[in-house]
């Protein structure tokens, strides 16, 4: 019996998706021309599923800084932060993040995934209680498992359900850590953070907010939902990523917590892995500076987000509860979602296909993320493709169809 036999149950669903077109999990870009355009199978496509919120992957200053760094410092650190892998840039980036968030401490991990693993398992352990939003990202669930803490889920974005489940813990010993996200990665909906903070204060727990999709997106200074909701003083830990608004790869945590430095010697996902290459540190530092100094990026992102979300909803598609740079179109079933995804690609639009079990409420979604770098013309092209395909697939209500006839 082969070791991989246990996974054979996935064969049939995978074959079913592949049989009707391309495999969404095996897409290969032959070229990436800009934050918003790429080449797929010899065809130019608009990139609408990239999390490249500020479009900084081709920013000149970020590229120059990155190129200079690789020339000066070499291609890699070849070591962990714990040993020989901390260069001046790693500390400079931690200081810049702490300053950006107005916090005492910051810690940089090699990926956002590792940041959640490392932070969660460092903060809660056996006997502690971790209460997480049911729709949390895989990295949060995996961090939960690594921690060996007692993990309780609460209903997505439901502060009353959070309160009920926290209250149910009674006077059991152990710490309590609540984990929520700023903007949720599938539907683009926002956590009711003010209400969650109220529960946190009443029940006396710690609060961690994962601002992966909200840093650079929400808040006056782009610090995320905690800033936008005016509750930064009540958020004990903010975790974020470099792979979205900051255009590279990596993760971080910021906090004012006493003894924070001990995390550096107990967090295995921090210690037992190589640190980020100097080129990545340099582009990220510059991207953070661009985020801080160029308010126009966030203004354009916001305008583009509304343009796409409002346009799709006006066409008659079923969307999530609010406009955000993540615009998910709900499909009636997985087969339609897969067919639409292929048709969109054939018409020059690449976005993400999200099917169960990775999606809330087992829905099949066409998930798009908008960038500050998209032009209004590109978004109009996307909307016209959606309008045509929506009609072809019979997805749009009769009134909308008549309006476009």
């Amino acid at each position, binding site marked *: 019996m082969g070791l991989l036999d246990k996974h054979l149950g996935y064969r049939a669903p995978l074959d079913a998706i592949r049989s009707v077109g391309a495999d969404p999990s095996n897409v290969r870009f032959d070229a990436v021309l800009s934050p918003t355009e790429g080449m797929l199978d010899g065809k130019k496509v608009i990139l609408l599923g990239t999390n490249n919120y500020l479009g900084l992957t081709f920013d000149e200053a970020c590229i120059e800084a990155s190129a200079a760094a690789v020339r000066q410092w070499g291609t890699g650190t070849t070591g962990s932060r714990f040993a020989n892998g901390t260069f001046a840039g790693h500390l400079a980036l931690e200081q810049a993040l702490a300053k950006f968030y107005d916090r005492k401490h910051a810690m940089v991990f090699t990926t956002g995934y590792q940041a959640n693993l490392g932070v969660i398992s460092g903060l809660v352990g056996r006997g502690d*209680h971790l209460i997480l939003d*049911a729709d949390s990202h895989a990295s949060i669930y995996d961090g*939960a*498992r690594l921690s*060996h*803490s*007692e*993990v*309780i*889920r609460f*209903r997505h974005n439901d502060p009353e359900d959070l309160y009920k*489940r926290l209250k*149910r*813990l009674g006077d*059991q010993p152990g710490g309590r850590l609540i984990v929520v996200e700023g903007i949720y990665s599938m539907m683009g909906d926002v956590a009711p953070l003010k209400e969650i903070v109220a529960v946190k204060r009443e029940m006396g727990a710690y609060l961690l907010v994962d601002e992966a999709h909200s840093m650079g997106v929400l808040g006056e200074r782009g610090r995320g939902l905690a800033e936008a909701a005016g509750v930064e003083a009540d958020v004990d830990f903010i975790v974020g990523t470099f792979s979205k608004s900051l255009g590279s790869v990596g993760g971080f945590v910021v906090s004012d917590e006493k003894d924070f430095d001990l995390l550096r010697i107990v967090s295995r996902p921090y210690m037992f892995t190589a640190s980020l290459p100097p080129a990545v540190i340099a582009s990220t530092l510059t991207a953070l500076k661009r985020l801080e100094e160029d308010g126009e990026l966030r203004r354009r992102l916001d305008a583009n987000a509304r343009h796409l979300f409002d346009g799709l909803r006006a066409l008659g598609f079923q969307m999530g509860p609010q406009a955000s740079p993540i615009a998910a179109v709900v499909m009636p079933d997985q087969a339609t979602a897969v067919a639409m995804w292929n048709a969109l690609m054939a018409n020059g639009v690449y976005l993400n296909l999200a099917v*169960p*079990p990775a999606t809330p409420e*087992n829905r099949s979604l066409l998930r798009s993320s908008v960038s500050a770098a998209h032009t209004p013309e590109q978004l109009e092209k996307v909307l016209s493709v959606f309008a045509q395909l929506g009609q072809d697939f019979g997805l749009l209500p009769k009134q909308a169809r008549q309006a476009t006839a």
Partner: protein
Amino acid sequence: MQRNVDVTAASDIGRDLGVDSLTLMNIVMELEDVFELSIPLDRLADVETVGDLAALINELRARA
């Protein structure tokens, strides 16, 4: 599942009842409300049958 199944203590939650891990977590959230109990997710690792789940709930109730 679209077919009738006799649920017994020996029923395997995944194989016999067609319940995947996410659905099981959602069922557990409901059971927590029904029994006014906290059922930590890490305890589900040892739960394979309906009988295992019932035993877990009884254990947690006895402790509470």
